[in-house]
C-alpha cells in the first residue's frame, strides 16, 4: 500500500511540476485576433457619380448629354483631374469605341464639380444588320459608357454604365 501511494505521489508531483514549468514559459496568454480593418484612405480621393435619370434619358443619337459628378472626397486639394469617357458596344466584335476627354483644373478638398460630355451614341457606320457578328448574337447590344478619372497626385476612380439603348 505504501509503495502504491508513493508511486502515485511521485506521478502527481512530476505532472504538476511539468504543468507549472509549461505555464511559466508561455508569457502573456494569447489574445483574440481580430481581422485588421482595411487601411483607411488618406490623401486625395476621387468619387465619380453618374446621374441615373440622365442615363435613362440617353438615346442612340449624337449629342447626348452625360453629366459626370467629380468630388474630391480626400483631405488634400487636387491640382487637376483628367477625365476620359469611352463609349463602346456590348458587342465586342464591333470596333466602334468613341473616346471623349476633359479635365478639371483644381478641385479643393471636399468640393465637387459637374462635368458635361456630349456623346455620340448612334450606331457606328457599319450597321449591326450587315455585320456578320450580328448573326452570332441574337439580341441587340447595349451601350457601355466607361468613365475614368485620374489626378497628378495619383488618385483615380472609375464608373461604368451599361445602358440598354
Amino acid at each position, binding site marked *: 500500500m505504501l509503495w502504491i*501511494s508513493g508511486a*502515485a*505521489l511521485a506521478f*502527481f*508531483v512530476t*505532472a*504538476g511540476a511539468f*504543468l*507549472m514549468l*509549461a*505555464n511559466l514559459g508561455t508569457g502573456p*496568454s*494569447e*489574445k*483574440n*485576433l*481580430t*481581422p*485588421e480593418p482595411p487601411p483607411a484612405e488618406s490623401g486625395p480621393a476621387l468619387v465619380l457619380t*453618374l446621374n*441615373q435619370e440622365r*442615363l*435613362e434619358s*440617353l438615346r442612340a443619337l449624337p449629342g447626348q448629354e452625360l453629366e459626370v459628378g467629380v468630388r474630391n472626397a480626400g483631405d488634400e486639394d487636387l491640382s487637376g483631374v483628367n477625365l476620359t469617357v469611352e463609349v*463602346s458596344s*456590348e*458587342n*465586342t*466584335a*464591333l*470596333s466602334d469605341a468613341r473616346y471623349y476627354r476633359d479635365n478639371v483644373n483644381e478641385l479643393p478638398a471636399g468640393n465637387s464639380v459637374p462635368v458635361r460630355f456630349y456623346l455620340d451614341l448612334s450606331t457606328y457606320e457599319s450597321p449591326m444588320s450587315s*455585320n*456578320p*457578328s450580328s*448573326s*452570332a*448574337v*441574337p*439580341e441587340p*447590344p447595349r451601350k*457601355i459608357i*466607361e468613365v*475614368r478619372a485620374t489626378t497628378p497626385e495619383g488618385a483615380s*476612380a*472609375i*464608373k*461604368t*454604365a*451599361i*445602358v*440598354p439603348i
Partner: protein
Amino acid sequence: MSWLCAALLAATVLLVVGCMHHPDQGTSIPPLPAAGEQVDPGLGPEARPLSSGPGYKGSPSWSPRGDRIAFTVDGYVVDRPVGTGDTRRWTTRDFVAEDAEWISKDDLAIFGATPGAVPAGEASRSVYRARSGEGSLGVKEVATGVLAMSPSPGGEGLIIAAEMEPYESELALLRDSGAVDRIYTGVVRGRVTGLSLSPDGRKAVLATRTAGDLNSFELHVFDLRVGTHRRLARLEEGTEILGAPQWTKRGICYVVGKEGMSIGGGAEPLYDLYTITQGSDSPEPTPGVGEDFVASSIRASPDGERLAVVGRLNPKAPINLYVLDLATQNLEDLTVNEDMEIKTGPDDLAWSPDGESIAIVARGALSEEPRVRAAPKGALLEDFYNLYEIPVEGRGAAR
C-alpha cells in the same frame, strides 16, 4: 498516513488547476477574408468565373489537358488559361463561329462560317482548323457542308456529319493532324441535327430529321467498324430533339419536346429527358430527375457514368445545373441560382477532361434600366454572359 493523503490531495489540486482552461486561451480566431477571395456571382459559393467583361459568350470547351478553355465571343473564338492569364484570340472578329472544340492540345476545330459566307437558318456550315502559336488569325477550311460535329471521347479529333445531297449525309473523322477520313461507307438518310460517339468510339448515335417530313425526328445508331446501322426510335410528329443525343454507359440520353409548348406562355419550350437503355429499343423518361423536370441541355461526363443537365425541377423552378448519376439515379444540384440566366443552348455546357468540373455560361437578369458599376467594363461579371467553372464535388475524384 495523513501526510500522504494531504500530499496526494495537493497534487491533485495542482494537476486540476494546471489543466484548467484559461479564459484567454484557445478562443477561436475569426477567419480573415482571403486575398482574392471567390466572388459569388449568384450561382452559389462554388462557382468560379472563367471570363469577365462584355461579349455574348458561349460554347465552352476544355483543352485535352484541362488547363485552358476555349469559347465563342460575339462570333469569334478565344481561349484562356483556366487559372490566371491572358485571353488569346483564334479568329478574326468578323468570323461567325457557333461551336469550337479541341482536337489536340494545340488545335481547335471551329464550326461556323468566314465573313461573306454566313449561311442562314439551318443551312450547313464549314469546319475550320486553327492552330495555336502560328502568329496569325488564319483558319483553314477542312470540311464543307457540315451539319453537326462532336468531339471524340479521348479529346483527339472529332466526328462530323457532312451533307452530300439534300437529306443525305456522310460521316467523317477529323483527325488532330487536320486530315478528314470518311469512317462510314454508307449514306446517312435524313438531315443530321446532332450526333455523338459511344465511349469506345466505335459507334455513333445521330438525331435526324427524316426526308420528306420535316416534323419527324429519328434516332439512329451507326456501327462505324462493321458498317451497319439501325433505327433506335422515331419520335411522334410535332416533337423534336434538342441538341445532340448523349451516349452514356447506361444508354443514350436525349432531350425531346413538343414544338410550340412553352413555360407560362413564354418562348422557352418544354423539354423532357429520355433514355434508351442498352438492350432496349423503347425510350423511357430518364429515371432520377422526377416527372416534372424540364431539361434544356445535356452533356455526358467523360467517363460516361454521369449526365450534366441544365434544367428546372419543375416549370416554375429556377434553371440550375444538375448532375445525374446514371447508376444510382441520384440528381444533385450544383448551382444555387439567385436571379441568374443560365444559357440553355445545347453547346453551352462542357465537362472538364477529368470530370471534376463543368463550365456553364450565365449572366444576371437583364434590366431595362441603366446600371452603374464602380469597376472597369473588363472586370464586370454578371452584367454580361460569362463562363463559370462549377466543381463537381468529389465525384470525379472518386472514380
